[in-house]
Structure formats: C-alpha cells, structure tokens
C-alpha cells in the first residue's frame, strides 16, 4: 500500500465553521471573520499586506465606509458542503467618497483576513449603496 495523504471534505467544513464563528471571547489571540472596512486610494491586493495598510490603500473612517461588523458571516457551499465562509455587507454612503476596495478583518479587528481591490475606483455619492460579498473557500489545490 502506497503512502498517501489528503485533507478531508469534512475538515474543510470544520475550518470554515471555525473561521465564521470563533469570537474574541472564545479564543485569546485569534478570532474569526467578522468586520469589514472600505478602502480608498491605489489598491493592489497582496499576500504581504498588513492590517495597517491593506491593499497598499487607505482604510476609510468616514462617509459610511468605516470599520464595522459585517451584516452576515455564514458558511456556504462552493464545492463540498460548507467549505466556504461567506461574508455579505451593504455600505451606504453618507457623503461623496471614492472607494477602491474593501478589507475583511477578524473579530479582534487586528488582522486582515482578505482584501479585494476593484477594477476601478467607485465614485460614491450620498445615499448610494455598495453591496459586497466575499467568499473564502477551503479546498484542495491552489
């Protein structure tokens, strides 16, 4: 019998559940997906990005795009059952604002879990809405 190894489908679901549900109160030093913030300025998503400077852009702190808890964070299915953490949120602009992307953070608000930079910056005006969705899938292969 040849050696072999593989992560499992149920393992993906377990990881996704942890990422979507663990709060600061449950685990000191680490927490799951919870918050979202709008970005402005030149934005390029990169693995080396930091909390202070996600996407090389500036985190917004006004006009409705400030750091908040996302509307919903749930597990969903992309390939195998519940292998994905899905975050949905609606920003409502309270002023004129250029938005070039968004960053998704943990419940502690000290780590950016993922960031997205748009094709081109959006020119938001008062009362405009920006509905965003981010899916983080755990899977075999890159």
């Amino acid at each position, binding site marked *: 019998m040849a*050696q*072999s*190894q*593989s*992560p499992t489908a149920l393992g993906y679901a377990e990881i996704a559940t942890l990422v979507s549900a663990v709060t600061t109160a449950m685990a000191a030093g680490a927490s799951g997906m919870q918050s979202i913030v709008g970005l402005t300025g030149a934005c390029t998503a990169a693995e080396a990005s930091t909390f202070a400077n996600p996407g090389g852009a500036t985190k917004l702190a006004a006009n409705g795009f400030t750091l908040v808890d996302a509307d919903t964070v749930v597990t969903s299915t*992309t390939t195998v059952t519940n292998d994905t953490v899905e975050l949905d949120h609606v920003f409502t602009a309270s002023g004129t604002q250029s938005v070039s992307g*968004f960053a998704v953070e943990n419940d502690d608000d000290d780590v950016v879990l*993922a960031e*997205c930079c*748009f*094709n*081109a*910056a*959006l*020119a*938001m*005006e*008062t*009362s*405009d*809405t*920006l*509905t*965003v*969705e*981010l*899916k*983080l*899938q*755990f*899977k*075999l*292969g*890159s």
Partner: protein
Amino acid sequence: MKGKASSGVGITWGAEHRDGNGVLITRQVSIEPPSPPTCIKPQCLLRYLYDALLYALVSTWHSRRVVYAEANRHKDILERYRTGEPSPENLWQAIHANLKLTCPLCRRYNADPLLFRTNINKL
C-alpha cells in the same frame, strides 16, 4: 521523506454599486488569473500564454467599462458596461471589446470599430 498535500484557500468576491433609488451603476466581479502551467510541453506553455493574455485583456476591459459606467452614472449607456455581462470570452472578443470601449462613436452607436457593424452584442 515528507508527504505533502497541497491545499489552498480560494477567494471570490463581488460588488454592486447602486444609487439611492436602487438603480445599478456598476457591478464588479473577481476574475481568476490563469493557473500556472503544469508541464513544459509547447502546447502547455502556449495555452498558458494565451490564457494570460486573455486574462490581461479581460481585466483591462472590466477596468475601462467600470470607469466609463461610473463617469456616466446618470446617462443611458449599454447595460453590459454596467453589469460586465457578457464578458469577452476569447482573444478576438476581448480585443474588439477593448477597442470599442475606447471609441466614443462606437460606444454610442454600439458599433464594432473593426467590423463596422452595429448591435454586436457578443463584442
């Protein structure tokens, strides 16, 4: 000897910009870059080059059409520039779509600048 299983994390996203009345201004989607080649045969490398070039052109088209749609938020423009659908699916369509988007008359009359035809929805 250590065994290694390659597991990964995939990210997809979407964003939809609407005005206060709920009218769509632009919709954006994530575009997957091509996977690196897994063999060094000429057809593998050529396939990768083709996919990389298509990816670059489609990305450029989406960037341009978002800029165009945002700049014309209160105007009547082709719906595909707001939704991004249909997106170019091959090099031919991507080249034509990019040229069309840079040509004001072509955009206005929905005409292909290379074929001199109008109402070419796939391009």
